[in-house]
């Protein structure tokens, strides 16, 4: 990208050339919240599976498909498998129709269905939210919230939270290197690692906190707290009627589906 193209990109609404990525951030959030909470409220594998498939279809058509399926797979192993093993162990030998035998003990069908309900609730909830977070830039979401009346201070806090996490991790690495240069062991056995926690953690926290004072002065010098409308470098297109309609439809489906799911499933 040339300098001229870079400058010109800020004169128009931000576009990525993908229908889901360019979906209005708040309409997209409402859509994902509706289906995510439907999966949580209904808590049946049929509803979870349907939402999981919907999220998968959306993810396939976005550039983030690879990250989506890898993250979902990791979360399945970390979040679900251990819980399924624990649940099957707890319910082994319970009365009721037998699904299969494990280490000579009967595992009832009810336990297997309970595990399926849990897995697909998590995967449905996780999947639909992943499609949102992987395809939406936080600054665009904050800009959209600011447009509908959220205070600039609140959006500043959200955005600086995300940038703060990255900078504090960098600081941690440099402090770890510095402490190692001073002779403090940070690698090795468990005892060595536990001993190194405080000498690494404390300088990072204390220096970050005392640095806040300087940043406050910098913010004041730039009239952060001044009254008046804030300007933005990046602009997001307002929500189209069809996007608003999809968000409202998602809310209606969530309410109707949750009630029907709780009654009939």
């Amino acid at each position, binding site marked *: 990208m040339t300098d001229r193209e870079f400058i010109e990109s800020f004169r128009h609404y931000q576009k990525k050339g993908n229908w889901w990525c360019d979906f209005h951030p708040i309409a997209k959030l409402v859509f994902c919240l509706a289906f*995510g909470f439907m999966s*949580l409220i209904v*808590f049946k594998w049929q509803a979870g599976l349907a939402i999981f498939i919907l999220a998968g279809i959306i993810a396939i058509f976005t550039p983030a498909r690879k990250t989506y399926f890898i993250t979902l797979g990791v*979360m399945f192993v970390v*979040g679900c*498998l*251990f*819980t*399924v*093993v*624990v*649940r099957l*162990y*707890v319910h082994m030998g319970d009365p009721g129709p037998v699904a299969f035998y494990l280490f000579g003990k009967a595992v009832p069908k009810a336990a297997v269905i*309970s595990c399926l*309900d*849990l897995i697909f609730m*998590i995967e449905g*909830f*996780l999947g639909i*939210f*992943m499609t949102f*977070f992987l395809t939406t830039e936080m600054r665009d979401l904050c800009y959209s919230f600011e447009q509908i009346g959220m205070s600039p*201070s609140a959006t*500043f*806090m*959200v955005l*600086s*939270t*995300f*940038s*703060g*996490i990255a*900078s*504090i*991790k960098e600081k*941690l690495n440099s402090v770890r290197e510095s402490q190692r240069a001073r002779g403090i062991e940070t690698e090795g056995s*468990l005892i060595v*690692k*536990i001993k190194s*926690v405080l000498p*690494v*953690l*404390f300088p*990072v*926290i*204390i220096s*970050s*906190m*005392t640095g*806040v*004072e300087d*940043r*406050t002065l910098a*913010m*004041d010098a730039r009239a*952060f*707290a001044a009254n008046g409308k804030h300007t933005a470098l990046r602009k997001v297109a307002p929500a189209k009627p069809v996007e608003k309609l999809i968000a409202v439809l998602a809310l209606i489906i969530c309410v109707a589906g949750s009630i029907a799911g709780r009654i009939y499933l």
Partner: protein
Amino acid sequence: MNGKKRKKKKMDNMTKLLIPLAVAINMLAYNVLYSTTMVILGDSIGTILVGAVCGPGPGAVVGILSNLVNVIKNPVMIVMLPLNVAFGVVSGYLSRKKIFIRLWKAVLCTPIYGFIGGWLSGSIIFLAMGGDFWGNMASVFVGIPLFNAGVPKYFAMAVGQLLFDCIDKAACLILVYLIIRSLPDRFLIKLPYGKYVTSKQYDESEVEF
């Protein structure tokens, strides 16, 4: 009058900057402490810290933002939002009682935090996850053995969560106390609840903001 206004504005800006930092501290402490100890989570250090030095409101905001960041990694964590908020609010109210001035006072408050982070979180998990055990260390090492010994499932799970969380929160409170003691008084007194966490006496008119 004008001076008072200026003072309030600047204190607000400091709080606004401390809130994102506290969320980052939560993430950092979790990464460093949990990966090393496997028992101490440390993901509420920032929330308790800001609750103690800035008050219940900012503490609650840190709780919300921390949960928002966690939700990106694991959306199921959204059900824990009220607990993170409660940590911040409780810290603010306890700070007013000057509990962060003495270590023993801070440590004595462990059961309050343990109840929120253990019993209440266990109850939320129990309800949200279909009234059954969740695959975590508290369930495996305490909950399931108690259940097998005849304790009702809900109490077995809640007691397990409570025990593990009390260990975590005791460590968090000690760390928060040490962090507050390491911060210079001239920094603390510029914060909304700074006067509650330092024993140093000062006249407000002498403080330069």
